[in-house]
């Protein structure tokens, strides 16, 4: 049973990807993607119900598993090398050749393959990740079916590029499942590299100059992560003589000698999660079709980074590495919030907010108390749903209005009421109580309160976050006066993922105490909060979760009722100092000519809009990373 489920979750997407690539019929492809989505979502739920396990599956087709991994790794690296040569990027070539040499030497001459330990290990952290990857990831793939058809209509291609696109879209899901379930660190490395290649292929999908440049940038940055990973792996093996991740975590705690490999792993994780100064690859990924961004940002790829940091967190608890990780993460949170506040490009705002939230998760991993780890894990869960939802909304909006600029979305409510309401709800779940993201942020702030260099960036950064979210939500609603709101047409395959995600985000938040006590507590060394009647409580603070939710919900319902009742109220035009013409949206200007009313939001160009700011932020972020690695040598 377990073998079958693991096969479905990890290799299933690879098979589906291969089928998508080979069978070039649109309908068959849609069917394969849908079927795979249902299958792995179900499998992930079954796996979750079965609970934690450690397991070694029998060799596939009679070939020892480590051979498969070695071949797979080599194949993968040579494919990446091919692309490095194709695009003539010297640094990438060096990095990949370095990885090939190290890996082959390591696998063939160093590692003792007779060592006996479970190849797969899952505690609740892995199981939560599998659930998020499989469910959110599948929903994004489903959304991609109608989206990509429309996308290609716009491009007017002779030959559809969709087979390759969907192949890599689903492969990334399989690789992520593999990554979070592996206990052998060599497996982990292989899946880590597959996500690198997959994201490279997806980003370069449109094949124009920007797409290729950004894809190459993503490739070299992620290769830096891969190289750091492989050095960490070999270093750890030299010290501990094992590739069993669980043993490495336990060993890390004992001596300072294990700290360097762990620091390199954290470094790799931070690059993967696009932390400063490596944020540009994730921002560049925005050129790809929206499902790619949604997938990379919410459930896969960047989540691989934070997963690794949280997985190895017990190994570096209480060390300098832990502290510098916390400071680094908090700085990324602050810097990206400042960058997001100056953006009017909706997708970029989402991207910066992703990097910021990942920074917060790293900060939590670095603080490394049970409270902080709880905050980090809850943030992964809630962020995945809300962020996937927002990306899909922006994708849908972009296909309708032809722009991703927030100012162009002004008054979108009149044109796309359904999507707009879903997007506004998504934004609210990202920033306000009683929703899960804010609950985790509360935990994070309370856990960070003893760390002065963490709490200051968190305090300033979260205020900035509120500004850019609120601004966006308000602009979406600012419809011109008296415009009739038209009901919106939306295809089934577009509507279904949006509805599931928005309900997921809301219902998961409703169940936050349950999520905490059933999912998170078993992973922690000691429970961080006691829960009574939906109240989170520990010596530091109290979060009256259900009481607050109840009152706010009642207020919300009454507000909706009052707004409905206001239908009878007299409508008046917006205030224009009495200079209104008969059209409520224009005023009487010079020579009695009507002038249309225009207003724009403040984007703080004079303060945060400076390109120099980015340079300094990158330099400072780089120094913090140097501190992180150098401090643990």
């Amino acid at each position, binding site marked *: 049973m377990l073998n079958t489920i693991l096969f479905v979750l990890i290799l299933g997407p690879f098979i589906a990807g291969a089928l998508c690539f080979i069978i070039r019929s649109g309908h068959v492809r849609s069917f394969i993607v849908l079927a795979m989505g249902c299958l792995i979502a179900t499998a992930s739920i079954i796996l979750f119900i079965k609970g934690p396990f450690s397991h070694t599956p029998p060799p596939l087709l009679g070939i020892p598993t480590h051979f498969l991994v070695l071949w797979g790794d080599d194949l993968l690296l040579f494919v990446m090398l091919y692309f490095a040569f194709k695009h003539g990027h010297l640094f990438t070539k060096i990095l990949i050749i370095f990885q090939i040499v190290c890996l082959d030497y390591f696998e063939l001459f160093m590692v003792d393959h007779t060592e006996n330990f479970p190849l797969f290990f899952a505690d609740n952290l892995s199981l939560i990740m599998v659930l998020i990857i499989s469910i959110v990831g599948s929903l994004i793939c489903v959304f991609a079916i109608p989206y990509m058809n429309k996308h290609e209509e716009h491009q007017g291609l002779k030959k559809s590029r969709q087979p390759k696109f969907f192949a890599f879209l689903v492969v990334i899901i399989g690789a992520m499942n593999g990554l979070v379930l592996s206990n052998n660190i060599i497996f982990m490395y292989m899946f880590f590299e597959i996500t690198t290649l997959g994201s490279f292929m997806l980003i370069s999908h449109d094949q124009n100059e920007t797409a290729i440049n950004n894809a190459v940038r993503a490739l070299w940055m992620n290769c830096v992560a891969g190289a750091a990973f492989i050095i960490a792996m070999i270093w750890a093996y030299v010290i501990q003589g094992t590739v069993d991740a669980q043993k490495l975590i336990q060993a890390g705690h004992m001596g300072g000698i294990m700290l360097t490999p762990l620091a390199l792993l954290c470094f790799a994780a931070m690059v993967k999660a696009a932390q400063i100064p490596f944020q540009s690859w994730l921002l560049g990924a925005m050129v790809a079709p929206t499902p790619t961004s949604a997938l990379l940002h919410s459930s896969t790829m960047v989540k691989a980074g934070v997963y690794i940091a949280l997985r190895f967190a017990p190994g570096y608890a209480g060390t300098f590495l832990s502290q510098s990780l916390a400071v680094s993460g908090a700085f990324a949170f602050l810097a990206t919030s400042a960058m997001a506040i100056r953006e009017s490009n909706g997708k970029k705002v989402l991207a910066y907010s992703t990097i910021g939230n990942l920074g917060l998760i790293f900060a939590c991993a670095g603080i490394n108390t049970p409270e902080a780890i709880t905050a980090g894990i809850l943030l992964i869960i809630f962020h995945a749903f809300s962020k996937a939802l927002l990306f899909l909304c922006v994708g849908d909006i972009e296909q309708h209005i032809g722009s991703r600029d927030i100012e162009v979305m002004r008054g979108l409510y009149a044109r796309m009421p359904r999507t707009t309401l879903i997007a506004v709800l998504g934004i609210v779940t990202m920033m306000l109580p009683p929703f899960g993201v804010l609950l985790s942020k509360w935990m994070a702030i309370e856990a960070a309160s003893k760390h002065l260099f963490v709490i200051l960036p968190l305090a300033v950064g979260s205020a900035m976050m*509120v500004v850019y979210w609120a601004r966006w939500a308000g602009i979406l609603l600012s419809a011109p006066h008296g415009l009739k709101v038209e009901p919106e047409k939306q295809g089934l395959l577009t509507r279904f993922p949006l509805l599931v995600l928005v309900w997921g985000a809301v219902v998961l938040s409703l169940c936050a105490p349950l999520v905490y006590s059933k999912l998170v507590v078993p992973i922690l060394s000691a429970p961080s909060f006691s829960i009574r009647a939906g109240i989170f409580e520990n010596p*530091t603070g109290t979060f009256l979760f259900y009481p607050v939710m109840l009152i706010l919900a009642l207020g919300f319902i009454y507000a909706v009722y009052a707004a409905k009742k206001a239908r009878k109220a007299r409508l*008046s035009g917006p205030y224009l100092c009495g200079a209104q013409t008969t059209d409520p949206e224009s005023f009487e200007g010079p020579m009695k000519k009507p002038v249309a009313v225009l207003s724009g939001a403040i984007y703080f160009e004079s303060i945060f809009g400076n390109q120099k700011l980015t340079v300094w932020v990158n330099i400072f972020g780089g120094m913090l990373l140097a501190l992180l690695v150098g401090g643990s040598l």
Partner: protein
Amino acid sequence: MIKGIIMVFIGVFVAPLLGGLIAGVDRRLTAWFQSRYGPPVWQPFFDVIKLFGKERMVVNRWLVFCAHVYITAAMLSVVLFFLQSDLLLILFVQAVGAIFLVIGALSTTSPYSQLGANRELIQILTYEPLIILAFVGIYLVTGSFRISEILVQTKPLLVSLPLLYIALCYALTIKLRKSPFDFSTSHHAHQELVKGFLTEYSGPYLALVEIGHWYEVVLILGLCSLFWATSWIGIIALVGVTYFCEILIDNVTARLTWRWMLGYVWPMGLAMGFVNLIWLHGR
């Protein structure tokens, strides 16, 4: 249990009365500073009653929705305060109201409302970090974010947190929208602003916003009172002096720009707060 019910009662019913009364006293004092006679102390209540009697007129129905969410959140935050709950939770619940008020203002196309809403967001941006730092300071002294833990302290918090109290006073001035920080909306008539982000709230809905603001005034002064919560005389003296200074500053300063506010309050407030945190941490 009975104590809890009394506290909820105070939070829901007594707090707005107190807030309205404070607004009345504020107007009388301001009049006194300006050598005017000023309105009766009960004038804010008369104003609100009159607003409730006005015809309902709206630009769009989002405003109605947002005004109701605002007053719910404001009320809830005050109730949580009187129930001696978690400080950060109170701040976040209060933020729900503040944000929805802005979203409502942004949902109209009036330029006054739009500009005011953007400026209000900048005000939120400026004061939120200061308040969070003040709470962190309280945590470092008492070991908890719960108000109930503050009340069992034997030494006033002001002794350990003097700089953070000053930083909090900046936040207070911004939150009360007093001069020199009254550029999102203002109690006085200003031509360039009209009524800022409250321009489009009218009639009964403006009355709700006004009552919500009374709740918020009580909440903020309540937060100030925590700094000398060891005796009633301390509370009254501290809150009285602080509010008197607020009114004085309101009357002797002119409104400046948001760039000035951000560029002045952040470095000053954050630096003072941080220094205070460092010396607490060093102990």
